[in-house]
């Protein structure tokens, strides 16, 4: 499950940066309020690229800025290789 992979690596990025994640993260959680800072997100995207083999943000023609956790997961699902 994409959602679980992302959550696992969010926790890892939080562990690396010493951030405190919100106790529950669901599809409506606003990313900027999730607990990760910009360094945390940079690490998350880089780790996801390592694990999944792609970085959707470098694949998209028009830049999309996800606002919620649900949108973030949807972007990764949309760009997943067939």
């Amino acid at each position, binding site marked *: 499950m994409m959602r679980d992979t992302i959550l696992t690596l969010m926790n*890892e*990025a939080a*562990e*690396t*940066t*010493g*951030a405190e994640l919100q106790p529950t993260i669901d599809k409506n959680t606003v990313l900027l309020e999730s607990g990760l*800072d*910009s*360094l945390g*997100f*940079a*690490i998350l*995207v*880089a*780790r996801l*690229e*390592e694990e999944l083999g792609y*970085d959707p*943000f*470098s694949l998209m023609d028009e830049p999309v800025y996800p606002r919620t956790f649900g949108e973030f997961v949807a972007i990764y699902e949309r760009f997943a290789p067939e």
Partner: protein
Amino acid sequence: MTNTSFRAQLQQALTPQSQLVTGVNQHNLAELLAANLVTENTELVSIPSQPALDFIQSLLRYDGAASKLLLLPATTDAELTTQLQQQAAALPTKAHTQWLLATSGTTGTPKLISHSLHSLTAQLQRNLTKGAELRWGLLYDPARFAGLQVVLQALCGGSALVIPTGESLTDQLQQLIDAQVNALSATPSLWRKLLMLPGLSDLPLRQITLGGESTDQQTLNALKQHFPRAKIRHIYASTEAGVGFSVADGLAGFPASWLNNKTRKLSADSTLLLRSSEQDQWLDTGDLIAVTSDRVYFQGRLNGTINVGGNKLQPEFIESFLLQQSGVADAYVYGQPNKMMGNLVAADVVLQSGHTKEAVFKAIREACRNQFTAWQCPALLRQVDDIKTSPAGKKIRQQARTTE
């Protein structure tokens, strides 16, 4: 000793133990001397480092006879050889035979540095009684500064010199063990690889030298543990300056009292400046140093910084911390390009056997979080089998790496 040729120096240094071993072949040095009489004068002689026997015979034959000896490391291809020969031919001749060594050149074309045999041998140990007890192993390319130092120390110091053949480090180590090598010089990176080989303790080492990269406390401690009776020293040398110094107290860095004199001082950029007795000008080594009340520590290269969102970091700073963590055999830290932050700190880690990636990485994250601020902690940890080293035995440091 300015005009004393290599032949003459070797002749004077012969002891009953003087010997050259290449692979499984043993050569008598007195016979080598007799067989390689000085030939006619020539301008420039190119001397490839392999086969090792030919390399040493050419040095004996041409020092004093040729104007310039161009020493070619094994990795020099035909194109680079031509380039170096052109560089060499363009250099003005001097009264003595010039020994031309190429810099290890981590970036760009290698540069030729002209040495005299006098300057190359100025710091050798000449006590032949002690020298006769040593059997030196050569793991460096003899056409590079560090390797040539081993060759000259062994041959001009009355010792045996053992040059292993073959590519695999395990095979080379076995040849050193078979030849009862008891003195060995290598980079800290290469020592960490040797420490992972089961046979290392079979070497009857009495003299251990580390050089070419800054030496960390952990590697010194591991060597001390393996070889409690060996004399361990780490040396700092510069191909450009042709000088260096060695530290034998078993501690990383060097005493602060060695700084601020005629040959060593701190620059405004916090780098180490060196001056040899033969030069008037100070040479900026580009090596960053930190000075505490009693010790000077190397901090990496001035141009090797990783930039994370505008914050700058020396990879060696994190590397030395990682090497102290349980289960870590070696580590290489570098900047991985990242669109959001410019770079992220990435670390390749070699695990010691019997440790799991999950446990070690978790412990590393926790230890780094307690020690450093968030942006300094390795964001990307990767397990690797081996850390690549250059032909000179140093970790290959890149200014930038692409995400692959």
